[in-house]
């Protein structure tokens, strides 16, 4: 009885937008949100039959897997290094955390400049070292633009991930390493057989939170390529934004957001199930 008010609040906060999305998804809606009538499955058909949607869906999965995977692969060794006690560790930790304080869209703008074909420092650097002989048009082709965006996605996810992993590492008592050393364990053995298994809960948290965050990450791709050229860097959120605000179709956009919701929801469900099984 006492939790009833908060329950009602939660229901309102979650339920009302959900109701609105479903209502828009099955209606013929004008650009300005005016509902012109019930349209049944028409919005769904329209979205599903759009090749750009299917393309964006696949690319979203690629984007999520590569960014999260890459982040973990880079963040783990970084965290291991930062755990060691060395001179200047505090400074190194601070420097690593600094990018976190920059808004994602600002970071994307800065990177866009760095990858500018005519004045960007990336091209300037590569030319200086003689790796390329003329400027590369990074953002002109999806084949280069998307990997660049994935790379930036990894870079901006690292501070957060390293923080979680460092927290995990510091929870492992150092005595067990000494004990293992005395028993003759080699460094990679103690990493593989002790550090990794004990890090598992922290890795899980890092992966799940990153998946949810990266899956819905909008600024990098929107700032750098707006899903183009020729729709070939769209992920679901950028596609959704374009549908709703550029093409003025809130109905189909609501359908896409339902799909996004469904995917994130099932990812969370899988995670809960995994935890249940482990626990």
């Amino acid at each position, binding site marked *: 009885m006492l939790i009833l008010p908060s329950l009602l609040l939660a229901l309102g906060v979650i339920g009302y937008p959900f109701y609105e999305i479903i209502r828009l998804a099955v209606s013929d809606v004008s650009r300005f949100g005016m509902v012109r009538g019930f349209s049944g499955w028409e919005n769904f058909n329209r979205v599903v039959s759009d090749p750009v949607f299917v393309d964006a869906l696949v690319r979203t999965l690629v984007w999520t897997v590569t960014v999260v995977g890459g982040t973990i692969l880079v963040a783990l060794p970084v965290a291991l290094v930062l755990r060691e006690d060395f001179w200047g560790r505090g400074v190194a930790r601070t420097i690593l955390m600094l990018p976190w304080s920059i808004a994602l869209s600002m970071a994307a703008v800065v990177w866009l400049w760095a990858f500018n074909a005519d004045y960007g420092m990336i091209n300037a650097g590569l030319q200086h070292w003689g790796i390329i002989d003329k400027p590369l048009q*990074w953002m002109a*082709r999806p084949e280069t633009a998307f990997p660049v965006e994935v790379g930036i996605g990894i870079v901006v996810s690292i501070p957060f991930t390293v923080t979680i992993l460092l927290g995990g590492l510091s929870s492992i008592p150092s005595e067990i390493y000494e004990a293992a050393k005395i028993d003759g364990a080699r460094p990679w053995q103690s990493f593989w057989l002790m550090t990794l298994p004990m890090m598992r809960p922290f890795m899980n948290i890092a992966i799940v939170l990153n998946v949810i965050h990266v899956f819905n990450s909008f600024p990098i791709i929107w700032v750098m390529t707006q899903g*183009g050229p020729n729709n070939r860097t769209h992920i679901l959120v950028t596609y959704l934004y374009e549908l709703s605000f550029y093409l003025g179709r809130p109905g189909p956009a609501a359908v896409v957001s339902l799909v996004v919701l469904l995917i994130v929801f099932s990812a969370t469900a899988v995670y809960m199930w995994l935890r249940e099984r482990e626990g």
Partner: protein
Amino acid sequence: MRQGWKWLIGACAALAMAAPAKAETVRMTVSFYSAATGPYFEKMAADFHAANPGIDVKIEVVNWSSLLQKLQTDISGGTNADVSIIGTRWLLDFVKDGIAEPLDGMMAPGFKERFIGPFLKPGQIGGKTYGLPVAASARAMYYNKAMLTKAGFPDGPRTWDDVVAAAEKIKADGGNGFGLMAKGTEVDVYFYYALWSHGGDVLDANQKAAFNSPAGVKALTLYKAMLDRGLTEPGPTNYTREDLQNQFKQGRLAMVMTAPFLINQIAKEAPTLDYGIVPVPTGTTQATYAVTDSVVLFANSKVKPAAMKWLDFLFTAGPRIAFTKGEGFLPTTNDEAKDPAFTENERLKVFVNLLPNARFAPTVTGWEDTAKAVSDAVQSVYLGSATPEAALNAAAAKANQSLGK
């Protein structure tokens, strides 16, 4: 005594009617055209307030790229301003939902006649006037005089053959000849320049997609051929209109097609650049794109007469000349067009002279979808993933679906 009472009641009534009028506030959303836009409107609001102490005008400046999104959000939430600048091509959506108010009944006599006819027309739907042209521009080709003189065209290119020939020479000297834009807004329009000048059209008389005509294929093939032969900047899908304008200002690009406001930008940022302006090159005919932005009055405004008074003031000669000169647009009213700032500006004249052959974006629903479909098609051709013909046909099918054909 009796008379006195009557007088008193009359005075009270007058006061009661005057009191709310005193507190009237007209809110206006304007788009950010340049750094001068905000200060201009603030100054006009102050001038207007001085002449009409009963009306306060509040200005809100919004970036062009997020203007439509902001209006959409404001309108859905019912918190929109009283008047706003919009892209005239969006107007139909506003009218269909009953969001824009027809102005005919509120206009002072002779108000409508102030405007230059062809610029007012896109703001009229179903015989009613909804949008007043506040900004107008047309497109022409800017060329770098030094580079083009060296290439043998000291007076600029006239035809597409000239453009190709000049770009070949400029390429041989290691420069970028023709600026091809394929990123951001108006990618489709950049293709329409060539489409129209080859005698094609975007939509036919039945509002069905017609850009995939032989003229369209020819136009896109021309662009693609220039790209393949290295006559453009490399990687056009990386260049927005602003990027190309910047390249032109820096003297790194010989030819680019864009709007009159680049004149002002060059004067400010690259005053030493020697350049000329010629009409959009011809294929078989002469054509350009003209575009207007309009001021609309929202139907849910509670201060319509006051708002109309403000608009009346904005569209008098003084404020108009200041605005159009400051932003580098084309005059939209007859009085301002007579000002020497426009009649004696040789560069601006090129644009004005193009107006009889200018095309406007048609007022149809689904125009944004058509623009997007064409832009995608153009990009896919530049990326080499489709032939001009296949890409345009696919885009036409998509556009027709959105156009309801």
